[in-house]
């Protein structure tokens, strides 16, 4: 491994945090940006995909690029969430504002691409607003056993769940959303608990929004990365310390030969290490090992909690990114073309 790619992990500090392969840093070396080189170095490899999450490696980009994707997923990939709550009746113990806040946080399975942004003074239309109804009344079960205290046995509708949201299609929505009727991604989220005599009736309006406005619009539960751990064993580990050495790392990272007790790093599994730096705590391993992480090797983990499939989020982020780039390009162009003494208007407006 190229030592320049490594971030040093020491007992009390982290070294070489920033990349230095920018032009002019290393004398007599050419580090100017080069598409061919970039293409060669860049790899994106998916490691694991499940219903809700994805693990992939992003190698060969600067931290700023990787971080930009992370930030965009969190803050700027649009989703649809409930924004306006019209309460007709709420006799539950949870007051209107809190109930509205809770309902807002429910992730919906509506594809944001099929809806438009609703700006502050826009009229609500079938293109920018999705309407749900929520109505539930808790009642006593007639045939409930006498000796129980379990609300599930005693009462009908003792919990208001996200599954109780009923979509009310408007206009062309019935057509557009036919194949995937709008609903919460998870029908079992408890919104409120009810008891006999309590009921809720409200209309909910869902709109498109961004995570930077409110955390409910964040499409991901987690979107983050860590750097690939790198372990260099500098001298052979004494045989009697082999097991202890192995225990200082996450399971599977260090291989100990059962016969010779020779210690080696499992290159395939070293990504499993959590870099707990436990090995640096023991004085007997002083000088035997060097810990580091690879600066441009990003182990991404994204958990989707929205209409997006986990694997769609990165491309989505990239397209948002490209949109930003194109507007910057346009603005820069405008700057270039504009007469020297005139105000330049950036962006779309």
């Amino acid at each position, binding site marked *: 491994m190229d030592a320049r790619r490594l*971030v040093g*992990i020491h007992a*009390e*500090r*982290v*070294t070489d*945090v*920033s990349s230095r392969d920018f032009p002019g840093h290393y004398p007599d070396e050419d580090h100017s940006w080069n598409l061919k080189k970039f293409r060669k170095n860049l790899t994106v490899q998916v490691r694991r995909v499940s219903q809700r999450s994805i693990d992939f490696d992003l190698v060969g980009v600067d*931290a*700023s690029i*990787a*971080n*930009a994707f*992370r*930030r965009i997923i*969190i*803050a700027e990939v649009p989703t649809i969430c409930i924004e306006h709550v019209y*309460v007709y009746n*709420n006799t539950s*113990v949870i*007051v*209107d*504002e*809190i109930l509205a*806040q809770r309902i807002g*946080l429910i992730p919906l399975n509506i594809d944001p691409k099929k809806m438009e942004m609703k700006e502050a003074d826009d009229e609500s239309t079938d293109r920018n607003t999705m309407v749900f109804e929520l109505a539930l009344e808790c009642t006593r079960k007639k045939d409930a056993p006498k000796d129980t205290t379990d609300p599930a046995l005693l009462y009908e509708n003792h919990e208001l769940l996200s599954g109780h949201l009923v979509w009310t299609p408007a206009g062309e929505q019935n057509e557009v959303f036919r194949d995937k009727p709008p609903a919460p991604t998870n029908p079992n989220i408890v919104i409120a608990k009810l008891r006999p005599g309590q009921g809720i009736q409200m209309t909910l309006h869902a709109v498109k929004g961004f*995570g*930077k406005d*409110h*955390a*409910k619009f*964040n499409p991901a539960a*987690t*979107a*983050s*990365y*860590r*750097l690939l751990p790198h372990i260099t064993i500098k001298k052979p580990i004494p045989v009697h310390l082999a097991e202890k050495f192995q225990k200082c790392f*996450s399971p599977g990272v260090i291989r100990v030969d059962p016969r010779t007790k020779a210690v080696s790093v499992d290159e395939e599994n070293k990504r499993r290490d*959590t*870099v*707990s*730096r*436990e090995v640096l*705590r023991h004085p007997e391993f002083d000088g035997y090992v060097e810990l580091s*992480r690879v600066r441009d090797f990003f182990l991404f*983990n994204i958990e989707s909690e929205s209409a997006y499939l986990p694997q769609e989020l990165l491309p989505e982020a990239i397209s948002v990114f490209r949109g930003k780039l194109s507007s910057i390009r346009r603005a820069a162009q405008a700057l270039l073309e504009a007469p020297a003494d005139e105000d330049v208007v950036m962006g779309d407006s």
Partner: protein
Amino acid sequence: MEPADEGSEWNDITGANWHGLSLTDPIKSVQDKWLLLPAFLKVKGLVKQHIDSFNYFVETDIKNIVKANNKVTSDVDPRFWLKYTNIVVGMPDRNEPNAIEKKVTPNECRLRDITYSAPIMVTIHYTRGKNIVQRTVNIGRLPIMLRSSRCVLTNKTDPELARMTECPLDPGGYFVVKGTEKVILVQEQLSKNRIIVELDTVKGIVQASCTSSTHGGLKSKTYVITKKGKIYLRHNCTHEDIPIVIALKALGIQSDKEILLLTAGNTDSYKAAFSANLEEAAKLGVFTRQQALEYIGSRVKVNRRVVGPRRPAWEEALEAMATIVLAHVPVNGLDFRPKAIFVATMTRRVLMAMEDEKMVDDRDYVGNKRLELAGQLLALLFEDLFKTYNTNLKSAIDKVLKKDSRTNEFDAFNTMQLQGDHLTAGFTRAISTGNWSLKRFKMERAGVTHVLSRLSFISALGMMTRISSQFEKTRKVSGPRALQPSQWGMLCPSDTPEGEACGLVKNLALMTHITTDVEEEPIIRLAFMLGVEDISLATGTEIYGPHTFVVNVNGTIIGLTRYPARFVHQFRCLRRARRVSEFVSVYVNHHHKAVHIASDGGRICRPMIIVEGGRPRVRAEHIELLKKGSVTFDDFLRKGLVEYLDVNEENDTYIALYESEIVPSTTTHLEIEPFTLLGAVAGLIPYPHHNQSPRNTYQCAMGKQAIGAIAYNQLNRIDTLLYLSVYPQQPMVKTRTIELIGYDRLPAGQNATVAVMSYSGYDIEDALILNKASLDRGYGRCQVLRKNTSMIRKYPNGTYDRLADAPPDENNSGQVAKKYDIIQMDGLAGVGERVDPGDVYVNKQSPTNAADNSFSGQAATVPYRNTPMTYKSPVAGNIDKILISDTENDQTLIKVLIRQTRRPELGDKFSSRHGQKGVCGLIVNQEDMPFNDQGINPDTIMNPHGFPSRMTVGKMIELLAGKAGVLSGNLQYGTAFGGSKVEDMSRILVEHGFSYAGKDMLTSGITGEPLEAYVYFGPIYYQKLKHMVMDKMHARARGPRATLTRQPTEGRSREGGLRLGEMERDCLIGYGATQLLLERLMISSDKFEVNACGKCGLMGYNGWCTYCKSSKQMAQLTIPYAAKLLFQELMAMNVVPRLILDDA
């Protein structure tokens, strides 16, 4: 539980030889002996001291008071008498004659602004004509303490409490008077009837004082003091100090030899110091008792009686000596011997202190203190009210009996019925104002009661354990404020306010009990049976003999013993066998060679495990039984495994903190749990033993301001101001105390993920950085509910207020004005509606002639004016609840609860549980927050500069334990002097792939690169405090002005101006900014144009001088209105201020 059926199990264990184990077998240490603590609290409760005291008053003391004043006779008719034979306080009921459902719950009283009180019923025997009649009469109502023996909530299960909308975790111990919850705080006082010897180093005076207090309520203080080397008796009832020898002679000890023996004994140095006193008596020519009495009699202040002849001086002296001086020492017949010995003992104590300065007493010593509780205060109040009631009754009866001719037979019962509600009103007034002014007992105390603070569960609980001291707050003495070593285990060392009341307001520790009075006659009899010789038979030689110890019961000397250790041991054995009350304490004072037995009320004591033969008497088996629930704490007491020790008795014991520290043959007791030395509020702090001590004190003050859950019935309450947390969480790092007091069920805070790092520079001076996404998701969200009350009155002239529906808008017919848009048909705002600033939510109208008592027309036809309730807060709220009810005097009451839901904003105050408070300095978007390898963002970023100077290591350990708890999926304990160990926590962290130190490698959310330092990262329990920017922010450009001075008003509530004060003014003067000064102090404040006459210098108007009758030299000038006002006021005082005008 049946005592018989569990008895056999007990005997198995406590028996000498059980399960065939012999004494030499290895001893299992008593694990989980802390379980005694929940057992104790189950029996005693957290505020048992209040409740016990109240129960004692209601069940015992009130009967004694009535017995002492049980007869009412008439001066007019000697054949008439009325006698109280019994008094009973009933259960609380509804004080409405035609109510069908008589039962009442405390919460109903709170909501309806009525008093939670029960009738006081007396049984009377009295003469009616020639017969003696017995009847039961209601003489008034007594406010009932919640959870006392007379309360409907006592011994109810949780579902039953829920049906009464009452919180099972509420400790009780307070009163509900006119709808407000009132606490009678515990008062700390110097103990009564005990000799306190003090030394005034400045004046070189030694004095022994004794405050006598008898059940009659008489209080007097007697001193034995030194003055120029001689000893005197001083008392309020004499004009001058009485030489001690004369006093003793007056008390019947005539011979000088006997006096010398009783005071100085056979100690030569004492004799030498005392001899001067004998000489003085001789010089004054006082040799016999008669002479002594004459001497004193001529100096006694005589309360002149209206009737009867004047009595000779010696009689006055005799009466004073018998009844006023040292009133608590009994004088049977004319046997002054005990009193003489008491005075002699005081004298001897003075002599001892004169010789050896160390023999003085410490008035700050907790053993010399007594705590006065609600019961005692109510007893005094009741006695006073009852006596007044009887005098009133007597004069009422006399008035009737005076009339000779009556149509029907006189029945005192009817007179009693007409007595009005003197007692009821007296109790209600005293408790609701807090003024205990009892002329009869020369008592004048204000601020006895306080409104129970319901800011948080902890603040309410903390108030119930609070002890206030009688010392003046302004005095700059450190003694009473200092931490006393004898407070250990009794009073919390951490929980005291800062500032002026520091050290004067204290709090009870977790496991304390305050005693109530125990009858002393049986104890005295018992002492005599154990071989105590009567003091009246002893001479000075015997009393001060080398091996004799004086036996005192509650400060009065009763006898002598030569075997104090044996006596005390036997006495304790009897106490452990429950032959005497467990709260009677007995101990030996070797300095004074005395055995003290105390049975008086107000002593603080706490339970401890008895150690015998180097082994605690509580064994693991007992704890097993306790765990099974087959025994209670009382069984431990009854079997003599555990006993209560008061502060004085603690001095006689050797207490081991832990079982391993028991020294065989010396250790007598074992501490139940060391953490009980902290109080309920300090018990919330995890790892307090790792913190710098003032930090714990700060947290004790702040824990009471934390917003959280208040009670299970919090949504059924309508308090003036209620702060509720939307998502309260129980702390990740708990303590045993938290579980015991129920803080885990009514928490006030949230487990925030904290990164200890600096961020952005908006975190200086303890400011916190908050994650915006966390706030979006509900972190720190709280509700503020404010009560607004309105009465729909009926006026004496027959008119009444009314509620009206919204009036039509004048400008826009058919529509309702904006400010009335939430008013419904009944004239009230709809529940759930949003109230904007300026909106009307109760559209009340009052008759214009309400005060006109001569009005006699139709009430319905009178003109009305609007008297609506308008919402004033600058931020919109929602109507939470509206309550319409009737008060006791039949007025309609409307309470409107308006709610605001707030998310944290810049400047809101937060605090951890370690006295580390900070305001929110910046709210950061989630993507800008640093994150760790798991992708976790912190909720809060705290600046590490908070640690070095504060030394709150406990907070660091809390983070570590919290993180370990999160990873292992359980809650950790941070109990004081115990709790989860750091080593174990680190091991858990390493096992889960984290650094042992709790420091994580973070990545900056802004650059995406790793941070160069590892960051201490994990959950810490954070509290949101009630100080929020929204309630404090204030600015003004223009606004209201005061009418008198025309200057801007003061204070945020009146939209006032910001004062440019004297010091600011000085700065501007120093800077020479005259125009700015002029603008700030006059132009922007109260500038006023006046016309002044250049000739006479007086003010005129409209360019006309009324004094000179001319307009020639009038000039217009601008002065502050306040200056103009001053001139006019001076003129009103016949001072002429003249304005000398000059063209500058």
